[in-house]
């Protein structure tokens, strides 16, 4: 631990504590649980109906109806990021020091205190021992790096030192993912488009606000198709889209559920579909005069009823209107009067309620089609997130399954009289001690053969 005084040191200490990390992990988990138990994304007014005033007070105060976007939740993510940065900055210099550390003055006493160590006595001369040690360890483990030369020979060999850095790769990856998400929310947008077959639009209804965003190009839905399996389950949704740039067709491509279209950084995903009315043919009977008129109306275009000054428009269409089948919402405008409108049942032409103003309305023919619902988004941060994902996975894999393994070797003339030379090998690993134990024992057994130990 560092011995710095002052406010920075105490802030640093608070943010670099593992207890804070554990606290954030558990607290984030708890908050997320609450978010999954309460329905998210509903209006506050809607929530008021379902909960008692006491519970509702908490929901309103802590924005529990939109918890993951609440300021306190985002603040928690910020604290997590800070904790990550401070912890990593706190530990990184120590790791680098550990990796570049060159020990001096190895002694037999020190090495025999290691959990993994082995001592040999051999009748080979010092020079022979040093040359055999170098050859064996450099070939079987890692390059032997001498520290002291005879009369006393000491050396180290290490591999996988970079494994100690992998934890920082994992931490950095989490920061990248958070940063990518931030970039996306600052510089991207997410919204929705609804385009009827044959129509084109450049207006995107934004998801997080009521604003409409105008794209610098138009999207036309040439055709929409839905197909079903014989079980009645939908098999495929397909929108044939064209991109119109300044009125000219720039791109034509079908869009499926798992296969979106991207143009100028904006991506269009197949999200929903529904029915629309293209054109309707009506028979209008004027109740007063008994005159019968026939008229063909395109959807949402105003026409004048022949022989009158009355105007008529189809404003709405529903594929299924309260179990009565399809219905068209039609409005009639008479000069000097308030407009009157009604739902006209398309499949029941003789229904007595098919009346608007002074007209009895009968649908002769209705040509319906589809509209396609497209999810639209632009997210310049997604590549940062993806780089974070790759770093996270690579980092976790290498962090768990590689280790920094180090050997210390000492050779000196034997004073105890068992032989010519005494050799001690000790080893240590940063993790996965069980596997290293096996590797170390195997290496020492073979080294015994090389050193011709009796």
């Amino acid at each position: 631990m560092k011995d710095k005084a002052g406010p920075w040191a105490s802030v640093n200490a608070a943010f670099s504590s593992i207890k804070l990390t554990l606290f954030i992990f558990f607290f984030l988990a708890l908050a997320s649980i609450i978010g999954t138990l309460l329905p998210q994304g509903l209006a506050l007014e809607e929530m008021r109906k379902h909960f008692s005033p006491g519970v509702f007070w908490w929901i309103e105060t802590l924005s529990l109806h939109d918890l993951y976007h609440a300021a306190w939740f985002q603040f928690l993510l910020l604290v997590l990021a800070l904790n990550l940065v401070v912890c990593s900055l706190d530990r990184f210099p120590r790791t680098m020091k550990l990796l570049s550390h060159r020990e001096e003055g190895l002694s037999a006493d020190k090495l025999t205190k290691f959990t993994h160590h082995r001592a040999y006595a051999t009748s080979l001369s010092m020079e022979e021992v040093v040359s055999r040690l170098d050859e064996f360890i450099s070939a079987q483990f890692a390059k032997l790096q001498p520290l002291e030369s005879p009369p006393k020979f000491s050396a180290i060999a290490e591999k996988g030192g970079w494994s100690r850095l992998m934890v920082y790769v994992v931490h950095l990856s989490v920061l990248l993912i958070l940063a990518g998400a931030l970039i996306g929310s600052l510089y991207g947008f997410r919204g929705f488009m609804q385009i009827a077959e044959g129509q084109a639009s450049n207006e995107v209804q934004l998801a997080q606000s009521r604003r409409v965003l105008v794209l610098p190009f138009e999207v036309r839905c040439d055709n929409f198709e839905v197909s079903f399996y014989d079980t009645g389950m939908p098999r495929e949704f397909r929108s044939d889209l064209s991109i119109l740039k300044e009125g000219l067709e720039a791109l034509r491509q079908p869009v499926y559920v798992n296969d979106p279209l991207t143009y100028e950084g904006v991506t269009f995903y197949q999200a929903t579909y529904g029915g629309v009315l293209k054109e309707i043919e009506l028979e209008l009977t004027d109740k007063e005069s008994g005159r019968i008129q026939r008229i063909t109306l395109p959807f949402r275009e105003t026409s004048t009823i022949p022989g009158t000054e009355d105007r008529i428009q189809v404003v709405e269409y529903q594929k299924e209107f309260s179990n009565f089948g399809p219905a068209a919402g039609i409005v009639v405008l008479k000069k000097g009067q308030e407009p009157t409108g009604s739902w006209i049942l398309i499949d029941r032409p003789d229904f007595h309620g098919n009346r608007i103003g002074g007209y009895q309305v009968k649908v002769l023919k209705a040509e319906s089609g589809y509209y396609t619902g497209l999810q639209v988004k632009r997210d310049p941060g997604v590549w940062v997130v993806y780089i974070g994902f790759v770093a996270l996975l690579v980092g976790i894999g290498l962090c768990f399954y590689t280790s920094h393994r180090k050997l210390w070797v000492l050779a000196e003339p034997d004073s105890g009289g068992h032989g010519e030379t005494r050799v001690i090998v000790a080893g240590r690993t940063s993790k996965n001690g069980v596997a290293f134990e096996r590797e170390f024992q195997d290496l020492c057994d073979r080294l015994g053969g090389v050193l011709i130990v009796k």
Partner: protein
Amino acid sequence: MVNSSILLSITTFAYLVCTVFYLAGAVFRFTPLLSLGTAFALVSLGIQTGGILLRWIESYQMGYGHAPLSNLYESLVFAAWAIMVIYVVLERRIGHKVLGVFPSLFAFLAMAYASFSKGVDSRIQPLLPALKSNWLIAHVVTCFLGYAAFAVSVGISILYLLQRAHKANPHPKGIFALLPNQKELDEFNYQMVLFGFMWLSLGIVTGSVWANSAWGNYWSWDPKETWSLITWLIYAALLHARTIQGWRGKRVAWLSMIGFACVMFTYFGVNFWLSGLHSYAR
């Protein structure tokens, strides 16, 4: 005529026999029974692998043509398979057959639930448009390898806690005499959590990339997504507590059990319970 449903029915029964052998071998301290358990585990795995592959082929014959990983039934079958594959490999590496009691029991329970519950439809069904993607296999396989490793780890945690509660007895009997010591159990538990955490991370990432390519959003705080993150956070806490704070044994075993409870909730709770909560406007 051999078909996948016959093979998978046999598998269910075979895992029951396997569990009985492991349990009897452990309780009566009779190692040949444990070896029989292992043999049965391998045979069951073989039959199950055949069943899964056959189901894959049958789906092509029906004209649907998709990997058998598309609904609850198929995921339960794959979960049982993954638990046993991971356990058998672990057993080979560490040589303690007595640990097979819980994995074989979990595999049997998953298969039994898949086969006998009325709520689980075992028919081969066509694929919804949303699932028609190569990401399906990558996402389901990675997630379930993670879940399976956590299942094996929770079995070890339970054995650890039993062993610990029993340590006062100087002459252990039955299962406790055969169990590895506490330090070993703690280490095996940790290894399984590491393995599971790696696969869970891969599972979340593949799911996220898939969601982005299908719906244009790599994270939308949907309950299933959120619960997988909760699970990830719990195991991340376990790893940090063990590595940095030096937690061992009891606390790690309990955290691993809490983590597995989150896995179970992500898998079943979100499907059956949260959807219910969200459709409260009946």
